[in-house]
C-alpha cells in the first residue's frame, strides 16, 4: 500500500491507483481490547449495557428469595441474614446504581422514538420523558406499599 502511494504523492493526484491483482484484503480495523475506555460516550454505552448483568443477578436473587420463602421460616431467616453481610450490601448498592442508570436511560429514550409533533411544532423532550418518570415513581410507591405490607 505505502510504496504504491509514494509516487502518487510526489506528482499530481492524476496518477492511476495501482491495485495488487487478485489479492483483495478484507477491511479489518484494529481495535483495542479495551476500546470502551477510549472515550466517555463509549464507556457510558458499555456501562448502560452492563446494567443487564445486574438485572440478571437480581432476578436470580429474587428467585432465591421465593425459594427461601417456600422452604420455611428458618431458610428465610438465613436468606435475610445473608443479605445483611457487607459483601451483599455493597453488591446490592452497586446493583441499585446500575438499575437507576438503566431506568433513566430507558425513559430518556422515549422522546427519541415517539412521534411528538403538535400543531407543526416539536414538543419539548422533557414533556415526552416526564410521563415515564412519573409512572416510575407511582409504580415504585405501589410496590413499596405492598412489600412493606401497608396495603
Amino acid at each position, binding site marked *: 500500500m505505502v510504496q504504491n502511494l509514494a509516487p502518487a504523492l510526489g506528482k499530481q493526484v492524476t496518477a492511476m491507483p495501482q491495485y495488487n491483482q487478485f489479492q483483495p484484503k478484507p477491511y479489518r480495523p484494529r481495535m483495542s481490547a479495551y476500546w470502551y475506555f477510549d472515550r466517555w460516550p463509549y464507556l457510558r454505552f458499555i456501562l448502560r449495557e452492563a446494567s443487564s448483568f445486574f*438485572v440478571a443477578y437480581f432476578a436470580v436473587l429474587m428467585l432465591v428469595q421465593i425459594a427461601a420463602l417456600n422452604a420455611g421460616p428458618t431458610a428465610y431467616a438465613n436468606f435475610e441474614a445473608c443479605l445483611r453481610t457487607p459483601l451483599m450490601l455493597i453488591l446490592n448498592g452497586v446493583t441499585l446504581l446500575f438499575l437507576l442508570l438503566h431506568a433513566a436511560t430507558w425513559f430518556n429514550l422515549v422522546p427519541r422514538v415517539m412521534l411528538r409533533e403538535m400543531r407543526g411544532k416539536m414538543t419539548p423532550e422533557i414533556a415526552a420523558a416526564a410521563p415515564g418518570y412519573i409512572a416510575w415513581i407511582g409504580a415504585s410507591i405501589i410496590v413499596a406499599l405492598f412489600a412493606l405490607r401497608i396495603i
Partner: protein
Amino acid sequence: MAHRSNRPLGWLLFGTGGFLVAFFLPVHVLLYGLLMPLGFVPDPGYQATLELLRAPLTRIYLFFLLTLAFFHAGYRIRDMLCDMLGVRQLDVVLAALCYGGAIAGTIAAFVLLVTVP
C-alpha cells in the same frame, strides 16, 4: 426465499422487559437489598411476606417481571459481550447461552411460584 431474521422476537421481549425492569425492579433492590437489611424500614417478616406471595396477583406479577427481566438481560448480555470483547463470531454460542439461561430462569420462576405453600 429471503432470509427472515428472528431478531424482532428477541427485541420484543427485550423492549417489554426493559420497561418492566425500569418501572419495577429498582424499588425491589432498594427495599429488599438495602433498606430492610440495614433496618431503615420495618421488615414485615416471614409470615406477612409469605402471605403476600400467596396472593395470585403477586405471583402473576412476579412471573412476568422475572421472565421478561431474564429475556431482557439475555438479549443485552449477548450483544454486549459480542461488542465489548469483539467476538461477534461467537454470537451463536453466546445467544445459546443467554437464551438458554433465560429459558432456565423462566422454568425456575414458574416452578417456584406454582409450589408456593
